């Protein structure tokens, strides 16, 4: 039995933050308070795009102690599969959407004596809520935030005003300033934890630099949301549900299953959490694993697939779903 805890919400406010970033504020339709959450958590927003169900994960960026509403920020991605375009073009104050319960796959290590946050672009959002909690609990932190230009960067001025220049450092591509990761990593006291959220290249770079500076991997944390990559359409048979379906070019297996009325479990929709792990019954072709959850051995075995991001090339794929 699965309990539906999703929350119908009303869009209370939409704010244009920069030319490419909009902030959305959601209040519950039933008038109840929102559940509290922890910094780093995300929600999955379900959108009805002309009969097409879209579900995208977004980090919560409002104050975790404020249960009157949730806020997310959405970057308009030019080659988006539609979710961010829909949010930017269609969603207006007063509209209704469905929001999931918060899920945290990027929680700070509460034992940390100091927390260093590295953000790139829209990767700032989980840190905004995290910093609220650090500041409330008098926990040491500093943010290093890289933006393309002062005009394109979201929230940098507000963060500077709120936490001051000793804790907030801004780096601007256009001004040729970059985060001196190696220098920052060098002289941190024991018990420091490092977090990075941003473009994949930035995440890899920061983690690699920290490891080279002698940091143990236990103190390094990152959040990568992988948007489901596009690819050629393919056929899947869901044997438990007895559904034959085609997964479209810009669709994930999970989305196709949902479109056919099959209620598969999920949490992150980004290949990270493991919730949508599905057993493969037979596979006449090649699995394209795009997740960061399964181990290399599990991927090679061909027995499991994370249906939120992974794809298939070949004749027929049969899943135990």
């Amino acid at each position: 039995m699965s309990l539906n805890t999703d929350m119908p919400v009303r869009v209370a406010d939409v704010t244009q933050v920069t030319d490419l970033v909009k902030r959305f504020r959601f209040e519950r339709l039933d008038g109840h308070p929102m559940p509290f959450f922890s910094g780093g958590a995300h929600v999955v927003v379900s959108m009805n795009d002309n009969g097409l169900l879209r579900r995208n994960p977004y980090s919560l960026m409002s104050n975790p102690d404020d249960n009157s509403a949730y806020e997310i920020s959405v970057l308009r991605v030019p080659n988006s599969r539609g979710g961010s375009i829909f949010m930017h073009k269609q969603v207006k104050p007063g509209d209704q959407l469905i929001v999931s319960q918060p899920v945290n796959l990027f929680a700070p290590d509460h034992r940390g004596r100091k927390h260093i946050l590295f953000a790139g672009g829209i990767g700032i959002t989980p840190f905004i809520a995290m910093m609220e909690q650090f500041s409330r609990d008098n926990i040491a932190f500093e943010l290093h935030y890289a933006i393309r230009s002062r005009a394109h960067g979201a929230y940098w001025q507000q963060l500077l005003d709120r936490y001051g220049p000793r804790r907030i450092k801004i780096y601007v591509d256009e001004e040729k300033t970059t985060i001196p990761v190696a220098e920052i990593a060098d002289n941190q006291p024991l018990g420091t934890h490092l977090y990075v959220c941003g473009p994949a290249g930035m995440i890899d770079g920061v983690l690699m630099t920290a490891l080279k500076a002698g940091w143990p991997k236990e103190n390094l944390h990152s959040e990568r949301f992988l948007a489901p990559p596009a690819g050629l359409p393919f056929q899947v048979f869901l044997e438990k549900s007895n559904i034959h379906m085609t997964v479209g070019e810009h669709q994930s297996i999970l989305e196709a299953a949902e479109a056919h009325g099959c209620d598969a479990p999920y949490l992150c929709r980004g290949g990270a959490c493991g919730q949508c792990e599905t057993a493969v019954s037979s596979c006449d072709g090649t699995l394209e694993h795009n997740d960061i959850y399964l181990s290399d051995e599990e991927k090679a075995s061909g027995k499991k697939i994370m249906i939120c991001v992974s794809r298939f090339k070949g004749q027929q794929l049969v899943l135990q779903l």
Partner: protein
Amino acid sequence: MTITFRNETFRDDFTFRNSLYNIRRFPFPFDRDEYMYSVNMEPHVRGKKDSVFENLIDVDEHYVAEMQDRAIVLKEDPLRCQALPHMMTAQWDTLELLMEHQARDYPEHFTLTKNGDRWRWINRPLGIDDTFTFGDPSTLPYPPMEYITRQAQGDFCIVDQRDNNLWMDAGMVTTQADWSLDFDIGMNFMEWHGPVPLAHQIGVFDRALKFLLNLQQGKPTRRLNWTMTVNPRLDTSPENYHKWGPDRTTVTPENVGDKMHLRVELQSLWRLPRSNAILFVIRCYLISLNELVTVPKWGRRLPRVLKSLPPEIVDYKGLTRNRPIMIDWLAKYDDGAPTSAGIHPD
């Protein structure tokens, strides 16, 4: 419904008894005639009226006496309640969860009034009326977890989540089935389950851990666990084993029905909102064999289960000495008739 709280003891003269109403609502843990470890988890949702599943945080007729027993244990050994320093947010989460549930489901006994961060908590059975500031430990007489778990039945562990594992980093444990919070605090999921036999090999803990790491807010889960205890003693801690251990030699065919108690843990697990930790509630229910056999289905099933146990489980649950006496005594309640599926009385 107003509960009439019993005046009774869980030590010395052992005056603990279940009322007829309470016997019928006992969470009998065996849904079939044999037992083996499994990942027997199900959504923790409201169940039948007049069962322990009626409310998600159950308060029953033993509430006041159990809280008195806890206070005695803590006076003897304050290490039964501990929290590592990074668990303060999770302590407040716990306080909020328990207060909200108790106040919502038992309004005759508990009242919670919130005015922003200023909260007033009234606990009528224990005669408590405190006003405090949520988030400020200096406004309560105890740290938040200790404060509220001195007022809630069951043991409580708060488990931190990091590095794809769960860590037992805080707890109030005074009614445990032979494990020590003081020893286990700081351990991860596999470590604190280390002494449990068989289950590791069949992968129970790997699956349970995977499941719990993705436990969602608003979707608590539960399972039943069980053991047996001589006398209705709540504090069967390893710390005091040398004090209660000799009880095991006092069981005879004449007194087994009175002395042996089935001890069931209703374990519920809750994702906590502000800390992302998991609250693990281990609510203990006791019933003597005399009380238990008043439900014919349970009288038939229990001897069958006891006979089917693998030796490792018999040993781990401390049943080696008294199992034969129980099986002999229970035999007269098993007429060989088939039993219905599920745990509830027919």
